């Protein structure tokens, strides 16, 4: 591990008294894509949502252990600040239906009550849409609502909305599972481009997606971190028997 940006130590998540994430230690490397894979119900989404403190809204969820972002304890930080530094893209594309494409991209600033000059806004919108490879397709319809866009375009709009806040990390919660294969491929290529400037943490139940685009992979099973390491190594010579069983389709 050369340059970790996010470190989890003895990390647990409980729903009421049920522990769904067991004592995990993991370091996420800067400017890399780390995949978290595992069968449904293994705690991968729960783990991801603990990182940007989304569990604050679930009254019966409880988090134990340390998360350090650039060596600063996340649980001591203001949750609002955490979420500005750590963006999130969801499973189903969820652009705001009451806003135009332009307003969607800039929505993070509007929601936070940050006032920007028109020129600054224009620049952020163009930059973010260019980075999410959507600019060419929507530059003439910026002030229309985003609801006529295809699923893949909507998801890229959501990525642009997240990028606009200039986050250090983006959490991706199965971002392509609601999309067709062509849109999926497009978005995977986009992630490979984006890792130059932002760290990506990708939850996926699709192990070939993890194999295609991630640098590191964590395999979670029933809340335990079974194995964590370089993706290439893990997919060719898994150390743990359960990882191997998952990769060849015996469990999962």
């Amino acid at each position, binding site marked *: 591990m050369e340059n970790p940006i996010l470190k989890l130590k003895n990390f647990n998540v409980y729903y009421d008294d049920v522990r769904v994430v067991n004592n995990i230690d993991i370091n996420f490397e800067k400017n890399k894509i780390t995949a978290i894979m595992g069968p449904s119900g293994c705690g991968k989404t729960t783990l991801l949502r603990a990182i*940007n403190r989304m569990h604050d*809204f679930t009254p019966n969820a409880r988090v134990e252990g340390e998360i350090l972002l650039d060596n600063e304890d996340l649980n001591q930080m203001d949750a609002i600040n955490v979420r500005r530094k750590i963006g999130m893209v969801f499973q189903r594309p*969820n652009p*705001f239906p009451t806003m135009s494409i332009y307003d969607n991209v800039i*929505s993070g600033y509007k*929601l*936070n009550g940050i006032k920007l000059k028109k020129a600054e806004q224009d620049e952020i919108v163009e930059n973010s849409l260019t980075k999410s490879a959507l600019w060419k397709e929507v530059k003439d319809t910026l002030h229309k609502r985003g609801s006529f866009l295809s699923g893949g375009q909507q998801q890229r709009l*959501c990525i642009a909305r997240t990028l606009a*806040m200039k986050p250090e990390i983006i959490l991706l919660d199965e971002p392509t599972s609601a999309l067709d294969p062509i849109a999926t491929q497009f978005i995977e290529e986009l992630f490979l481009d984006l890792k130059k400037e932002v760290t990506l943490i990708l939850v996926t139940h699709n192990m070939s997606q993890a194999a295609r685009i991630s640098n590191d992979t964590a395999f979670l099973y029933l809340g335990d971190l079974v194995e964590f390491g370089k993706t290439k190594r893990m997919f060719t010579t898994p150390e743990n028997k359960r990882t191997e069983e998952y990769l060849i389709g015996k469990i999962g």
Partner: protein
Amino acid sequence: MNKDRFYKFILSSSVVVLIALVAVILVLLVENSLMSIKEFSYTMFTKNEWDPVQKSFLLISMPFALFLALFLGEYNTSGYIHNFVKSCVELLAGIPSLIYGFWGLFIFVPMIRDAQMYFGVIPYGVGLLTATLILAIMITPYSASLAQEVIRLVPRDLKEASYALGATRLETIRRIIIPYALSGLFAGVLLSLGRALGETMAVTMVIGNSNFIPKDLFSPANTMSSIIANEFTEATDPLHLSALIEIALILFVTTSVINLLGKYIIKKMVIK
């Protein structure tokens, strides 16, 4: 098969009865008000006494109902407090309007009378303002539960997206939830208005029953329904009776239109 047909017959006949009921009411109202319509044409409402001014209650009731709805639909979506507040709302909605009328007569009327003395106007106590306050209180539980349903329809996805961008709860409510629910909330206001227009008993008890267009909020006045309730038993003159029925007809049409409009907007929103 035969049994199936029998059930179908029973079900459809109750539908027919229902539709017939609406039609019969409409026909009766139109038929009996013809005399008055011929006599006064349509000037009755604008020219003289009976003016259905009764909308200011919305101003009082709606913010309160919206806060209640946000509390129930967004902040406390389950648990003891939610259930307790919700039962209170339902309880308030279920109280017969007569009781609200009594309550208004004993609590509000003296209060308003004091206020009127203070402002130096004739202290009737009863009047438009008192009726407005009572209506506001009566209609709040109804609009709160409507608004709460609408707010619950806002997809979780959108709220989470907003939180994930670093928005606070208040910012999310203001910029995501309310804009998304706006048409539904508006429809809720319309439905509440429809309900309040037809509200009779409590209003009749505290409005003062004066058939003049009120000069100000303190004046005694009359609503369409309170006129009917007050004068129906004394209406021996056929023309008087017919005029009352014409009011009923107009009340019927207004509330129906408002209700249909409100339901149409809510339906459109759900499909989206």
